[in-house]
């Protein structure tokens, strides 16, 4: 009994210890730094000046930009991934090939992805050249570093499509074909089968897919840095600038805290919603 416990402890120690050291401890450090303690530069004393310094236009704009990218990517990706998952569900000719090609972005690092898409969207990129060549436009369109952040959204959707697709495919897979057949048998057209059966039964999967992509994109650095607008930047980019360009480590820590806790908040919302949905499902 005692040795069993000891074995168990030894088994979970590396994993749990790693998580504690690099996650809990790091988050705690960041929180403390945001209020002036454990400062890496200068003296340490309890102060909220870093938090007050955040209450300016730049931070608010960055926050809203990150929120927009997070929400926009999460739902923007869903618009593509859900119909695709529905299509790939019924194995037809070619679905396997499509399924594999679509997973490619999964293996391309974000920074590389950003550069790849850059080549397509750039002022003298593939898209503009093609449109010019076809005579559809007579001057190249400025699609990079646009103020709204369309490029960021496009790249994020491209990058996150396979994530959502994998989650949604697994969810749809778990719906018995008998249930769908029963609905058709009772008079539901294909559209109504989706509306009344598939959609509600895959709601938990949709929720997971949306929240996951939100968290992945809300804290994005690489893609915004490469393809995003000059102003505003994302929270992560702002954090980097504060820390390494302006040497404002305290402010950077505050931004880190905001990113972390916003993500945690969404995880919590998601967990509650998922539980509610699961209860409905029973």
């Amino acid at each position, binding site marked *: 009994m005692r040795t069993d416990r000891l074995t168990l402890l030894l088994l979970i120690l590396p994993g749990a210890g790693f998580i504690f050291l690099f996650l809990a401890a790091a988050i705690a450090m960041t929180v403390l730094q945001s209020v002036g303690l454990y400062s890496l530069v200068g003296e340490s004393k309890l102060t909220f000046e870093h938090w007050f310094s955040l209450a300016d236009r730049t931070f608010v704009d960055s926050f809203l930009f990150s929120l927009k990218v997070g929400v926009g990517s999460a739902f923007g990706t869903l618009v593509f991934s859900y119909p695709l998952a529905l299509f790939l569900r019924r194995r037809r000719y070619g679905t396997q090939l499509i399924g594999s090609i679509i997973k490619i972005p999964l293996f391309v690092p974000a920074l590389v992805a950003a550069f790849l898409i850059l080549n397509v969207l750039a002022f003298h990129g593939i898209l503009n050249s093609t449109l010019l060549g076809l005579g559809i436009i007579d001057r190249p369109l400025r699609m990079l570093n646009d103020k709204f952040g369309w490029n960021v959204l496009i790249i994020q959707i491209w990058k996150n499509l396979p994530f959502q697709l994998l989650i949604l495919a697994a969810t749809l897979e778990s719906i*018995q074909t*008998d*249930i769908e*057949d*029963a*609905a*058709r*048998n*009772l*008079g*539901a*057209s294909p559209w*109504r089968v989706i509306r*009344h*059966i598939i959609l*509600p*039964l895959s709601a938990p999967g949709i929720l997971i897919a949306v929240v996951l992509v939100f968290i992945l994109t809300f804290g994005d650095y690489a893609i915004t840095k490469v393809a995003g607008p000059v102003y505003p930047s994302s929270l992560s980019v702002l954090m980097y600038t504060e820390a390494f360009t302006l040497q404002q480590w305290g402010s950077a820590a505050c931004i880190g805290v905001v990113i972390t806790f916003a993500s945690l908040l969404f995880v919590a919302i998601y967990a509650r919603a998922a539980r509610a949905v699961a209860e*409905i*499902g*029973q």
Partner: protein
Amino acid sequence: MSGLRLRNVVRHYGGFTAVDGVDLDIAKGELVTLLGPSGCGKTTTLRMVAGFMAPDSGDILFGERRMNDVPPHRRNTAMVFQSYALFPHMTVAENIAFGLKMRKIPAAEQMRRIGEAIDTVSLRGLEARRPGQLSGGQQQRVALARAIVTQPDILLFDEPLSNLDAKLREKVRLEIRELQKRLGVTTLYVTHDQVEALAISDRVVVMNKGRIEQVGAPEALYRQPLTSFVADFLGAANIVSGTAAGDHLVTTPIGRFSVGPERKLGSGPVKISWRPEDMRVAAPGAEANIVGARVRGVVFCGSFTELVLDVAGQQLRAQVDTGFRGREGDLLDFAVPSDRIRVVA
């Protein structure tokens, strides 16, 4: 309401032929059962009638109307699935209402018909439950109510009782049959359980490897199987190979048998078959159709005793009454009445 006709229906999966030229006429209001071992193509046939898949060739007709290209939601069939296939996110009442909602039946009539269906299957008080909160038997009733409430032209059952325990199975079997008779709805019922098929059907279709072996009323099929497959699949059968020796005589390695009068045999190899319950201990001095057999096993089965017999290396089975006092190892004479012997293919 209409009859159902299958005309030379064929269906392949890849290179494998699952349904191989099925011809079948089901009259209005009739209950016909597809009976056969697992994998013989029963479900595939049923799914083609429901419209979930199309035949590769052949026709499916409801009444006079060819249905091959009609999608399932326009067929007005109702199916009870083996898995029940209830909608897990809907209550019992919502499940039953689904078909009516899809048909855009006015709300007041929906309420009335749902109430009726719930009474029919005795689910009062459970309307607000979800399928996950019901027992297997209750789920089965919801599936049944959901099907009949739409007043289908054709009712389809795919092994609806296979997930119930034995006692409940018998009870629900009777209820389904009564309900079907009362509604007068044309019904195609699938099972691999021969007792269920015999008990519930107007006619039984025995299937084997995608083909129909024989069609008939339960008793006719049981008494007059045409093939050794049917004889063996419906109940138990003793099947012996032999040679025809005259119009009503068959010579076999275990003796000569005179067989029933209704078929002339000619000559050549034949198989004969009889039921274990038609074999009895011979009265002293009897001469016709006598088999001298060694008793290899005596199994008490409650209402009868089952004997395992050995005749010149061939194993036979007999059912005798429980007064039987023989033992393993005894050598006894058994008689088989000639009108109970069938010549089978």
